[in-house]
């Protein structure tokens, strides 16, 4: 008998991505693992096939229903390929249903590109680690097992928003402000410029601890100051607003490999709140403390789940919803200057570690985005931006080098033809 195709609803956070993605803003993120030796394509293909058995949701295509999008199981089998496209090229195309990820390799790098509707950074990282581990296990005959992520298939494809949505939860009011936006000439062909900086995690952490803050708070304050230095005087009335996605798995016991994040915003008006680094840092620290409370996070889940679960909204046809979601997306675009996401520490079994140089993550968005993740002592800070100008990236990394931290910088400059190469 013919197999009936399985289907899944999109989780709450995923619903915004299909309507708001475009060639300019692909909502695709790339996970990079740089190995010590060149990548072997056929071995990577086998590692991918093995990983997909554990993450069957990744074999889905995204389709439109009358009221909502949904994932439908597909019979497509992905092929790993050598990288030939610009980074984070579009993946989702409503007229060509295809898988929502691609696996690429180039020299020593394994790259996984994923459309955000499928999963968030932490979710994709579980998939990516598993694939990299299977690759290394076959290539170097590693006997160890990847034991720190033992979620069942149900847990991996769980909709955690649905599980933790509490109707009674109070919805926090958000103050909408029009943020300062970095403007300038864009790179050609909708490409994005990536600047990857590799630092010693220990050294940066030590600096953060000297200021009595966490790594994220420290780097956000540094980012805000770097952006501020490039602002024209007449633009200084606008606050610099950084959107920070928060991994909700840290606060709720979910092991889902799909989306489960909420966003908080840190705003600093350099005109009113002060221009010194210490003042910015104090503001960032206070914002984090105020927003990262269980009540507020519950409220973040409730805010969007309440809209999604409203019977009247449910009954609006998808095409009309797409229109309103696009409007909401455009409005949200005006409300932040940049985004900052911390994927956290990536761990691998001991035997696999020696074959890996680093892990890195970056994301294609319309506004600049800073992503960080660490592996061993290597902290990778990647800044993605669609603009030709790299002023704030330069100021950001220079601030770090001025503190005596050594930084290695890699970029896709030659690819984007954005400079004077």
């Amino acid at each position, binding site marked *: 008998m*013919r197999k*009936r*195709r399985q*289907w899944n*609803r999109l989780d709450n956070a995923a619903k915004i991505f299909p309507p708001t993605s475009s060639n300019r803003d692909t909502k695709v993120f790339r996970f990079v693992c*740089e190995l010590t030796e*060149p990548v072997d394509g056929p071995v990577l293909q086998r590692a991918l096939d093995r990983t997909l058995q554990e993450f069957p949701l990744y074999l889905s295509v995204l*389709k439109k*229903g*009358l*009221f*909502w999008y*949904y994932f*439908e199981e597909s*019979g497509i089998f992905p092929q790993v390929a*050598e*990288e*030939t*496209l*610009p*980074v984070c090229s579009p993946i989702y195309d409503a*007229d*060509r*249903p295809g898988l929502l990820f691609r696996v690429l390799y*180039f*020299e*020593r*790098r394994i790259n996984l590109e994923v459309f955000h509707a499928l999963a968030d950074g932490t979710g994709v990282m579980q998939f990516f680690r598993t694939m990299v581990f299977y690759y290394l296990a076959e290539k170097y005959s590693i006997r160890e097992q990847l034991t720190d992520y033992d979620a069942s298939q149900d847990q991996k494809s769980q909709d955690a928003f649905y599980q933790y949505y509490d109707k009674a939860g109070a919805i926090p009011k958000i103050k909408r402000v029009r943020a300062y936006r970095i403007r300038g000439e864009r790179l050609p*062909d909708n490409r994005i*410029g*990536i*600047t*990857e*900086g590799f630092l010693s995690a220990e050294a940066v952490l030590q600096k953060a601890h000297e200021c009595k803050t966490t790594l994220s708070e420290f780097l956000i304050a540094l980012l805000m100051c770097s952006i501020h230095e490039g602002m024209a005087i007449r633009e200084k009335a606008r606050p610099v607003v950084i959107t920070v996605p928060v991994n909700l798995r840290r606060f709720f016991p979910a092991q889902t490999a799909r989306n489960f994040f909420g966003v908080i915003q840190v705003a600093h008006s350099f005109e009113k709140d002060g221009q010194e680094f210490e003042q910015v840092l104090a503001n960032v620290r206070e914002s984090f403390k105020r927003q990262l409370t269980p009540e507020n996070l519950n409220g973040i889940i409730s805010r969007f789940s309440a809209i999604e679960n409203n*019977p009247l909204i*449910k*009954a609006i046809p998808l095409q009309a919803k797409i229109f309103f979601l696009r409007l909401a997306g455009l409005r949200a675009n005006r409300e932040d200057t940049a985004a900052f996401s911390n994927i956290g520490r990536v761990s691998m079994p001991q035997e696999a570690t020696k074959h890996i140089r680093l892990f890195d993550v970056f994301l294609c968005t319309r506004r600049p985005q800073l992503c960080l993740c660490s592996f061993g002592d290597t902290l990778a800070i990647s800044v993605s931006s669609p603009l030709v100008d*790299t002023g704030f*990236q*330069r100021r950001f*990394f*220079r601030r770090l*080098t*001025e503190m005596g931290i*050594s*930084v*290695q*910088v*890699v*970029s*896709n*400059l*030659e*690819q984007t033809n*954005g*400079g*004077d*190469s």
Partner: protein
Amino acid sequence: MLRCEHCRVDLPGKQSGQRLCQNKPVGVPDGSGGRFPLLSESRITISRILSAWVAFGSVCAAAICVTLNLILPAGGWWSLFVIAGIASLWIDFAIVIKKRKNLPKNILWQVVVVSLIALLWDRSTGFHGWSLDYVLPILCSCAMVAMTIVAKVRRLDIQDYILYLMIDCILGIVSFVLILTGMVSIIIPSALSFCASIVFLAFLLFFEGKAMWAEIQRRFHL
């Protein structure tokens, strides 16, 4: 390893420039290879050039017609029909191109769009009823046959086209409703289309009922 003395950063791999400050780095590359491939310049495809020429041709044709019409105004505003004709063709052509990856869906879109365009033409030329008498029922019936052929030739899974076939059958039934309401004066095409719709729907229901129900659940979930 290469180094930028201005930013005081190291540059691993082979990097000919420095993205942060655009200054030339000093030192020698460390031989660890590139991190990103060099991309070839984006090329303009033949289909793009072709569609640009066809678009250019249509605009020229429209402009010439309007000009001739202005010079020789004797026959009324016939150039408007030329422009409407070109616009109709372009609308349809755009949908064919946009939906080309999914043939059954494309066929259904053709039924809807061509019927609507025909209805508009019919209305604007005195409403003789030919769009409802002939175009809608004939398109519906042909689409049913075309979808069946496409499904067989391309060996499609029933789940890939069942929804489109169902909608097409419903459109076929609409032409029967039009007979009942008296909006259709030539009965035969609509009656045949109604018959074909019932036959196809009955076939789907009796032989592919479960797939039909599953598709309805998927597509209409709230």
